[in-house]
């Protein structure tokens, strides 16, 4: 659609104004994270702190458990994403490429349960983790997330688009089924793996519900949990809370800026977040 000049200028203006409005809360968060408590509570609001209080970040990391939580989130997210990609890609490979008795029955059963949402299964899952004595462990944080039904389904769709003649060529050249997986399917599915990786990174990094249930001790808090607890316990320390929030946002924003194209295709693919 070609637009006239005046329309273009006004659209440009609307776009810029909208963007400024959306950035507003971000700017406030960053600014508040660098203010003293008096400045945060001042009226009218102060936008530029007199002296940027970088020590807020040090305090958040050292005294308010954010440093440890950052480490925990990094560990849990990395292990979960790598594990999920491995487990789901192997499963998807079996569904898409390998014929064995019972495969289609398993797949049907799987499709039938895919509609059932997380909050239905979370109560039995919690009781399972609880009776296995796994409350307050990394295992409880990581394990249930490794077997994403959605991820298996998504990768299977990707694998199905790869021509079967490539498999046959590998077999004729003397390769086996694991060679096909490693050297044909995986390299040709980078887009799908990237999409799933980003999707599960976001989900695991940002999630609060499951950590709230299975983690009690401070040493195992993930970032969202640490922030939520700080909100309850240090309710008046706005500047520290904002510093912690910035710390939680930075890794996501960095990954987003680096992998923007894949991010966008992963959202367009999956169409959902949360």
């Amino acid at each position: 659609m070609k637009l006239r000049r005046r329309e273009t200028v006004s659209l440009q203006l609307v776009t810029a104004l909208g963007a400024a409005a959306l950035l507003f809360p971000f700017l406030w968060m960053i600014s508040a994270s660098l203010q003293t408590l008096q400045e945060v509570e001042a009226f009218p609001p102060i936008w530029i702190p007199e002296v940027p209080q970088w020590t807020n970040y040090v305090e958040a990391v050292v005294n308010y458990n954010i440093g440890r939580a950052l480490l925990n989130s990094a560990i849990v997210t990395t292990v979960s994403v790598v594990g999920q990609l491995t487990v789901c890609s192997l499963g998807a490979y079996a569904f898409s490429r390998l014929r064995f008795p019972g495969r289609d029955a398993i797949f049907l059963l799987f499709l039938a349960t895919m509609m059932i949402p997380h909050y239905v299964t979370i109560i039995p899952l919690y009781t399972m983790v609880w009776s296995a004595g796994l409350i307050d462990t990394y295992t409880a944080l990581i394990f249930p997330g490794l077997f994403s039904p959605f991820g298996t389904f998504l990768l299977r769709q990707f694998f199905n688009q790869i021509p079967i003649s490539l498999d046959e060529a590998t077999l004729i050249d003397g390769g086996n089924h694991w060679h096909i997986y490693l050297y044909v399917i995986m390299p040709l599915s980078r887009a799908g793996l990237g999409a799933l990786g980003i999707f599960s990174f976001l989900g695991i990094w940002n999630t609060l519900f499951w950590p709230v249930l299975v983690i009690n001790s401070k040493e195992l808090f993930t970032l969202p949990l640490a922030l939520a607890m700080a909100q309850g316990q240090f309710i008046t320390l706005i500047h520290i809370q904002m510093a912690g929030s910035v710390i939680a946002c930075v890794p996501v924003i960095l990954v987003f800026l680096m992998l923007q194209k894949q991010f966008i295709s992963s959202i367009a693919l999956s169409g959902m977040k949360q």
Partner: protein
Amino acid sequence: MRSRQAQVGQTANELAAGKRPRMSGIARKEAIAGYIAISPWLLGFLIFQLAPILAAFYISSTEWRILSAPEFIGVRNFDKLLFKDDLFWQSIKVTVIYVIFRVPVSAVLSLALALLMNQQLAGRRLFRTIYYLPAVIPLVAVSMMWIWIFNPEYGVLNSFIRLFGVEGPQWIHSSRWALPALIIMSLWQVGTGMVIFLAGLQGIPAHLYEAATIDGANTWQRFLKVTLPMLSPVVLFALVMNVIGSFQIFTQAYIMTAGGPGNATLFLVLYIYRNAFEWFHMGYASALAWVLFVVVLVISLIMLRSSEHWVHYEGRIGGA
């Protein structure tokens, strides 16, 4: 490698010869690889998906306080929630209001943004990044941020409203404004919808617009007669996904309002959480979870069914 027909043919021959079908060496190798490849996933599926679903069925028909054994009570949980539990109906009311306002408004906003981003504007990529950014950051951080934005005394929102000489509402501290506040906040994250719509817009062939222009259609007519019909499958998809997601709102209410004030933001998932993990009514909470599932399922099905009347699929003759 054998084709599927060859395999079927072989099996048929074996059956005709009165033998049980047996696998050739190659097929057996393939099957073994298949079982190995699927086993980690299958194990996880059975333990973390299938078993919990079956258990959730059973648990919802019990009275279970986790420390003692579950006691079977049939459909009494469902009877209680439907006929005796005012809080359940409050949570349904609050959740439905949230969904009814949030889903359409955010659909219109994200469609408008996607149309903007589809124009040849300067700095389009930068703007797309900015618009999408709020949708990727942790919801907990978003909630922390907005608690202070909504602060009635020194929050930036009410400071802004004061510029016009009016005192703003108490937002999340008022039972009247807490729900609207959470709806407003959710609109900050319209980026997800925008990205989905933008992908849809870019898939509309340019020749349709050219043909419409030759036929004398103006911008508005092209939007109504080309853009909307061609985009309608994406709209349906985005709406259904948004409804499913919005029904599950939890984090914001957990952090910002704790369901209050006066249960004004007691969303259904928060109410499930309370029953299960604060009061340890596992059976009742499971029943609530199934009700939520059925509500979302029925609404999704109604939306899909209604889509026959407004979603246009290319390649189908005569529309509708």
